[in-house]
Each structure stands twice: as C-alpha cells, then as structure tokens.
C-alpha cells in the first residue's frame, strides 16, 4: 500500500489527499440525499432569505479566504525567496555569519563584513573546476537602489542577455536592473552607504553612465544598479584591481592591486563541482556555503510556525463555521413554518432533514468556493505588496495545500451541519405550523 502510494506522482498524491479530505462530506451528502430531491425547495428557501444567507456565505468566505490567502502567501514568499537565490550557486566570504552574507549578497541587504582579500580571490578564481568567480561588492547606492560592483560575466549569469543596451565596458559604466530607478543613457553619482544614512556627496566627482538594462530576474537585483567592481574600488579611492596603466576591466585581477571584496559568487564547471568547492573553501580563513542550504534551513526552522499557522487557519475556520452553524440553528426558526408544512402534507422526516442539511451545505459550499476566490485575490494582492517592499518576486497562487485546507473544512462543516438538521426535525410540528 505504502509502495503504491510512494509510486504515485506528487500531483496524484495531492489529488488523492484532496479527494480523501472532501470525500466524507460528499459521501455524507449522498447518504443524506439518497432518493430525495430537496434542491428545488432549498433554492426557494435560499432566495426567500437571500440577505441573511448572503451574509452567512460572506462570513464563511472571508474566513476561508483569509486562511487560504495566508497559506498561499507564505508559500509564495518561500518560493520567491528560493527562486531569488537559485542563481547563487556557492558564495565564498570571510568567516562569519552565513545568514548575514546571504542577506547581503543574494537579497542586497548589506551589512559591514570582512573582505575576501585579493590573494584569496586569486586562489579561488584559479582553482580547477571554477567556471565563474564573480566579486560582489556592495555598500553604495543611488536613489535608494543598491549599486553593486561585479563583473560582466556575473550580469550575464544572473539575468541572461540584456533587455536593452549593452553591458559595461569601462569602470565608469553601469547596467541597470530591470526596475532600477535609472534609464539607459542616465549618469549618476553613487552615494556611500544605504537609506537615510547614505552620504550623498562622499563620492562627488565620480559618475557612472548607464549603458544597458537587465531582464527581470524576480530578485532584489532587479532594483539594483550593477557596475564594474573596478568602478567601486576607484570611487572609494582604492587600487583598481589591475596593475597601474592597465586599461581594462574584468578578470583576471592582479592580486597585488585588488582591494578585496565582501563576497564572491562561485560557480563550478560541473554540478558536482560546487559540492567539492564548498568543502574546498570551507577553512579557517574563509567560508563557503550554498545560499539554498541556508535558506532551506531558515525555512525549515519556520516549518513549525507554518504548521501552527495551518492549524490555526483550520481551527479559525472551524470556529467560524461553528458560529455560522449556531446562526443556522437560529435561521432554521425562519424556515420552521415551511418545514412544518412539508411534514404536514406528508414529507418524511428524512426529507425535512435533507432539506435543512442541504440548505446548510449550500451556504457552506458557496462560502468555501467564494473563499477560495477571495483567498486567490488576497494572495495576489499581498504578493504585489511584498514584491514592492522586498523586490523578491512573490507569485502566490492557490496550490494543493490550500485545496486540502478547504476540502477538510468542507468535510468538517458538512458533518457539523447534521446538528441543525437534526434539531429541525425535532421541532414541534403543530406550533410551527401555526406561527
């Protein structure tokens, strides 16, 4: 059985789980409705009290939508942050906190960091199996956008062919990220530092001219301006990475004239090479790590929070459903006269039971369906908000976990709907008929 389950594709497993979750509710429905056709009557009752019913549906929908939206958003954020790190195979930096280096180099949230020296960089770049060793030198900004020093190869590695213009060819040229606040042809002087503390005139006299624009990557790099690392060093009054008189940019750098860089992105020629290089560069004077590993560990730490969130989302919905059902029991008084008439003209108790249950089921199912739609819209809205604030492209859509949540919710509440149905058939017939 277990082997059979494991042999199924993930989609089939998810679909089977969703089906298993919703099955109790559906089977219950089939059992309650067997041989009866209460729906035309239920439709009439729903129309009769359309305002009240609409309110109940909305209440369920908002609760389902919030749960679904939050779950989808959390997953979207996780996937978005993982996608943003995908291009960063291996980061080598001076020993310290992997999380700090990852936040700085992948998500461009810079902090003060020790540097990889020119000699260390030269060693890394010269190691057999290293296809790309790109310095990532952050610290400056322009109009709120990070200005990052690197190489033309890194630009290509990160975003593929440019969307417009050409890559930088001199230390005074720059390539804009897809949504950076500069256009091709613009010139700007970088500020030293970031945000409110940035020193706007620290680099007066230096200017970059934008020569190209990268395609969108869905990462914070879309807001960044990429410049040759030589430009960053020059702007800070340091050596250019090349022997004096050399008028070129890009690797190889001359270790003697290389001021150092906070981080180096390393990519091996072969997939397995990255794993070997990680061990190779993990030593007392430098550290090497996969941002994917650090991110997976961080997300792993949040798994418990995620489980708690899912549980709370589920519980909240059940509680809302419970209050809705209490409301329904009160609502049953509204339709009590109609139910009494049905019994008076010969409807069996089972039919009256089915009418009330399917009345509740109609509200629950409409609420759940509307909730899914609301959740989808909410997740989209939140995603746009998070993308705007973090530059991590978050595309939250509805996935299996949300469908599982809703399927479970539907089953539980359909089961709970047996209660108002049971209470309805126990009402006194004659006094209801006379009201």
């Amino acid at each position: 059985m277990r082997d059979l389950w494991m042999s199924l594709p993930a989609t089939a497993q998810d679909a089977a789980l969703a089906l298993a979750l919703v099955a109790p509710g559906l089977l219950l429905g089939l059992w309650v409705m067997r041989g009866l056709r209460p729906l035309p009557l239920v439709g009439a009752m729903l129309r009769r009290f359309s305002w009240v019913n609409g309110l109940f549906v909305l209440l369920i929908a908002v609760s389902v939508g919030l749960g679904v939206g939050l779950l989808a958003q959390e997953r979207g954020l996780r996937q978005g942050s993982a996608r943003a790190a995908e291009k960063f195979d291996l980061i080598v930096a001076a020993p310290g906190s992997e999380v700090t280096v990852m936040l700085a180099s992948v998500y461009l949230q810079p902090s003060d960091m020790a540097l990889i020296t020119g000699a260390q960089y030269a060693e890394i770049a010269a190691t057999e199996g290293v296809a790309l060793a790109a310095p990532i030198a952050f610290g400056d900004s322009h109009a709120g956008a990070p200005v990052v020093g690197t190489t033309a190869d890194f630009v290509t590695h990160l975003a593929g062919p440019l969307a417009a213009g050409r890559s930088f060819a001199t230390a005074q040229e720059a390539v804009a990220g897809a949504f950076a606040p500069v256009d091709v042809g613009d010139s700007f002087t970088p500020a030293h530092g970031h945000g409110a503390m940035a020193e706007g005139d620290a680099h007066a006299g230096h200017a970059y001219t934008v020569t190209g624009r990268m395609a969108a990557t869905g990462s914070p790099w879309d807001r960044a301006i990429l410049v040759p690392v030589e430009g960053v060093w020059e702007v800070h009054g340091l050596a250019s990475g090349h022997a004096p008189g050399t008028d070129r940019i890009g690797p190889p750098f001359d270790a003697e004239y290389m001021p150092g860089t906070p981080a180096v992105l390393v990519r091996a020629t072969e997939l397995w090479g990255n794993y070997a290089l990680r061990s190779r560069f993990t030593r007392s004077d430098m550290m090497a790590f996969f941002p994917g590993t650090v991110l997976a560990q961080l997300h792993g730490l949040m798994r418990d929070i995620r489980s708690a969130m899912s549980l709370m989302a589920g519980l909240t919905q059940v509680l809302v459903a419970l209050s809705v059902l209490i409301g329904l029991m009160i609502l049953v008084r509204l339709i009590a006269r109609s139910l009494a008439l049905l019994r008076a003209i010969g409807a069996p108790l089972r039919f009256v039971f089915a009418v009330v249950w399917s009345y509740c089921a109609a509200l629950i199912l409409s609420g759940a369906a509307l909730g899914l739609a609301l959740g989808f819209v909410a997740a989209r809205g939140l995603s746009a908000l998070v993308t705007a604030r973090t530059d991590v492209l978050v595309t939250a859509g509805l996935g299996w976990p949300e469908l599982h949540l809703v399927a479970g919710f539907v089953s539980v509440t359909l089961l709970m709907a047996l209660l108002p149905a049971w209470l309805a058939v126990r009402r006194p017939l004659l006094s209801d008929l006379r009201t």
Partner: protein
Amino acid sequence: MRAPDLRVEGLRVQSREGRVLLAIDHLALPGGQSLALTGASGAGKSTFLHVLSGLVRPHAGRVIWGETDIAALSEDARAAFRRDRLGLVFQDCHLFEELSALGNAALASAFAPRAARAPIRAAAARWLAGLGLGQAGARPVDSFSGGERQRIAVARALAGDPPVILADEPTAALDRANADALGADLVRLAQQDGRGLIVVTHDAGLAVRMTRQLRLADGRIAEDSHA
C-alpha cells in the same frame, strides 16, 4: 375512487396540563361523505381535524381510515399516510413564496416516490387549470390574490389524488365572494370524484354545503345533523 370509511372510537386528547381537549366516544362517516366540523373557538374542531390527519396523536382511542388506525402508526407512517391518502388545506395557505404556483401545487413531488413524481406534477397542473389558474402556473405565488393563493393550496391538496380532503377554516381569510367560490369549488371537486371532505369552519355558508354537520362543544359532539 373509493374513499375510505372513517371510524373514531374512544378518542381522548388532553392538554399538557391534563385538561380534556377532545372526547369523542364514537363517530362513523361512510366513505365519500362530506362533513362540517363547527363550534365555538376552543371547542376542539381543529384538534379533531389534526387527530384525523395524524398531526396529533391521541392519548387514547382509535381513528380508523378504512382498515388503517392512524393513531397507531409511527410518525413517518402517518406522514406517508397523509401524503398518499389525505389532502390538507389550511386557513393560512402556507405557500412557498419563492416557488411558482405550479411548484407549490406540485410540492409533494419533491418527496414522493420516484414513480409518483410525474403524475403529481401533471395532476397539479390539471387542478390549477380546473381552479381557473391554468395560465398562471409559472408565476411566483406572491403575485396572486388571497383567493387565488387558497386555490393554489387546494390544487396542492388534490395533486396527490387523495381520496379524502381535510380543510381547516379554508375560507376564513377570504372575502364573502371568494369564500363562496372556494367553498363551491371544494364541494364540487370532492363530489365529482367521490372524495371524502371534512371541513372545519365558522362559516355557516360553507357548513351547509356539507352533507353532515357536527357541532363540537368542550371537545365533545354537541350536535350531529344530516342535511
């Protein structure tokens, strides 16, 4: 159609406090006869009709329709008996406002056995036409006048082709003209197919249309007169 004879024996219904609401030692009504139950308010007329229809179970006694003692049946069996054998008309017509006239008249098709559903719908349309509402079957019932609404309720009572019709103050909410017309319709429809008809009414005009009048007082038969 062979309407069942009705036999009532040793019937006792008490209120929760133990007050006697109905005490009818013996009553026999041959099948197909019409009967008016009259009397002052609180005399027990409606209670008697509820017992006859199985809506109320007596504390003692037997209510035998043909061979069936309805008082001895379970709740669901009494419901099934009402569905198959009795057509009920109420003072307040009790219509589903969001359904059409035909939807209301054919209401029993929602819970009738599958084979009976189509005949019920066909009969409902036929009865509506017979009551002068043939063109209006699709209209929502809230667009009908009081007299028309009560006719829809009569069509509903007849749709299952019951051998007996039980009506509780069917004309009480109607004006004189409508009351007379409905009373005439009820009697006509019952007589043409040989149905039994039992009507609770304050309306002397309606009562005299019945072949027999039973006046109740304090839950007992005070007067039994045949036309």
